[in-house]
């Protein structure tokens, strides 16, 4: 017996590195996406907002199945249906919610001196959260956008006497690229926004304010909590505003912030002329949900500011960095190579749809990994690391070869090209966490 004891004790000393194993099956991977549009409601955005409204079907077309119905997942039959959908139309299994706010974090301007609809992160529209499965998603969203968000200067509206509502009372989209007064009259019988938004466009702050209002577990940095009952310049909302937006941010859903603007970001928590949005990104990273940014904004590439219009380079840089750092995308409103001509909104919204489809190709990790130890397997087959084919990672233009990449900003492994796992594929990601693994283990 005395011989066995030390041997047993010594053998118990066999020590090994512990790896995290993150396992997903696409069938159970969360395909919920909460999409917040942050619209620049200044007068200069009339054309862009019209283009967004008129081309919105392009965006929805990528996310909506032919039936436009919800995505059931209760039965084997549902699984088969989802498989067929995924095989034929990848984005159709995104279960999305849409809402709109404006870049007006400063609520003192606008219709009243208080918080008007769309200001300080509040949502616009009578039914502000449009959900997949609603009767007419496109029209509901369009109403919220056109009637309750965009500023229409009456004297600038064109007239089209030939426009007429359909027999069933619906409002068909007008011909051309401009929205006529008659269409507004049809779509917005209760009127539309006739006061301009704040002059300082704060896309990042507004998005933050919305998430703070909507999230059940918002970080303390969201709120002005000095207890004096009024908001200070640095914080447009109070603790009492927490939870004031219901049913928009769902647990474990991915949050996509789409900022549409022709200006740079002038958010208050970063000094003017500072192009680094890290203070905001740090706060966004504290939300339990994954937050990504897609920005449709002024064109500014290769230090060429010829298509910036009135936008400041540092403000545009904030958006570009935010998009790149969150694995999002930055889409130019104008084409530098084509004399600053407007880019095609159909294409722009297609890119947005693609970004959402990629939700199913990115797998968040539970801990921060030692990147050199990451190994990825799909259905038992090891997947190699991807190589950069072209573009720049930091500005969101990277094009990757087949394989996977580690995204430090998202702390996620993203798949590219033919390596993207199919529906119901078993994905396993092994890595050694930098911080180690707690030892509350059955060993």
């Amino acid at each position, binding site marked *: 017996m005395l011989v066995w004891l030390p041997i047993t004790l010594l053998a118990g000393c066999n020590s090994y590195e512990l790896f995290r194993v993150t396992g997903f099956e696409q069938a159970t991977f969360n395909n919920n996406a909460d999409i917040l549009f942050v619209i620049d409601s200044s007068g200069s955005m009339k054309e862009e907002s019209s283009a967004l409204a008129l081309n919105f079907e392009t965006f929805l077309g990528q996310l909506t199945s032919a039936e436009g119905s919800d995505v059931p997942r209760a039965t084997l039959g549902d699984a088969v249906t989802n498989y067929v959908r995924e095989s034929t139309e990848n984005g159709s299994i995104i279960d999305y919610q849409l809402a709109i706010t404006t870049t007006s974090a400063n609520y003192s301007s606008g219709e009243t001196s208080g918080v008007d609809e769309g200001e300080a992160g509040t949502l616009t529209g009578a039914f502000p959260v449009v959900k997949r499965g609603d009767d007419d998603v496109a029209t509901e969203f369009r109403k919220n956008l056109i009637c309750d968000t965009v500023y229409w200067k009456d004297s600038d509206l064109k007239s089209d006497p030939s426009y007429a509502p359909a027999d069933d009372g619906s409002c068909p989209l007008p011909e051309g690229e401009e929205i006529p007064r008659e269409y507004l009259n049809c779509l917005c019988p209760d009127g539309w926004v006739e006061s301009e938004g704040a002059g300082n466009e704060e896309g990042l702050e507004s998005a933050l304010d919305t998430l703070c209002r909507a999230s059940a577990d918002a970080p303390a940095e969201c709120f002005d909590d000095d207890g004096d009952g009024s908001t200070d310049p640095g914080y447009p909302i109070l603790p009492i505003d927490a939870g004031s937006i219901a049913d928009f941010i769902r647990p474990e859903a991915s949050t996509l912030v789409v900022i549409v603007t022709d200006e740079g970001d002038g958010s208050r928590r970063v000094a003017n002329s500072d192009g680094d949005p890290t203070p905001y990104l740090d706060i966004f990273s504290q939300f339990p949900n994954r937050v990504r940014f897609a920005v449709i904004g002024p064109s500014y590439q290769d230090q060429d500011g010829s298509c910036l219009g009135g936008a400041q380079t540092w403000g545009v840089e904030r958006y570009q960095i935010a998009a790149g750092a969150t694995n999002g995308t930055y889409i130019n409103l104008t084409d530098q190579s084509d004399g600053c001509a407007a880019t095609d909104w159909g294409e722009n919204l297609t890119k947005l749809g693609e970004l959402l489809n990629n939700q199913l190709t990115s797998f968040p990790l539970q801990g921060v990994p030692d990147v050199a130890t990451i190994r990825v397997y799909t259905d038992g087959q090891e997947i190699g690391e991807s190589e950069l084919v072209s573009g720049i990672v930091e500005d969101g233009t990277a094009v990757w070869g087949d394989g996977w990449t580690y995204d430090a900003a998202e702390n996620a492994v993203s798949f590219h090209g033919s390596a993207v796992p199919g529906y119901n594929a078993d994905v396993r990601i092994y890595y*050694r966490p930098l911080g180690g693994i707690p030892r509350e283990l059955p060993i």
Partner: protein
Amino acid sequence: MLILLATLAHAADVTKDVAKDTLDIGVLKNTEVKVVQKVLYRKAGTLELGAQLGVMPFDAYSITPQLSLSGVKHLSDTVGLEVQLGGGYGLESGTYTELASATYGVAVESYRYLASAEADVQYSLAYAKMNLGGKKVVHYDVYALAGVGASLEQSMLPSGDIAIAPTVPVGIGGRFFVSKTSFLKLELRDNLLIEHRAQSDTWGFKQNAVVSLGVSMLTGGDK
């Protein structure tokens, strides 16, 4: 009757002879008593060939059955040189499986035993016999061993990385003689090895402690 009388007469003669040859040595003290055991089963000069079935039960993350073949050249009754080849496969233990489940989400970079080749020196510490329930006397010897070798191991992570690990075996065992040429062998061998673990790019110390039972034959020599 004649036979009986003749037998008694012979017995009386023997008793008288023994008494005549008796040497009085006085009283023996305990310290003067030495144990003398005749080595009935000899190994000197023989070649021992054997096969053993073993198990490595002490690792937290694997349990490994092992089959080994060995040859021992006995230079004397106390010293032998052994070559041993082993093979096996480390199976995931319940602990490993539980850790890898969704509850913990932890994968251990443990390495499973696949094969080994070792050479060692064996020294017989003792030769003895024991009484099994008053029915049978079994002769056995106890030996210790130490040597060098190499082990082939494989990561239990899906990468299946292979490691060839320098190994130092140490152990203790017993040979329980069944006949002049065969015996059962019970052994506890601790294989101390150091291996490079590819996925974490670390070096790790490991012990593969084997408990084995086998049969061996002695060939050659003057038994």
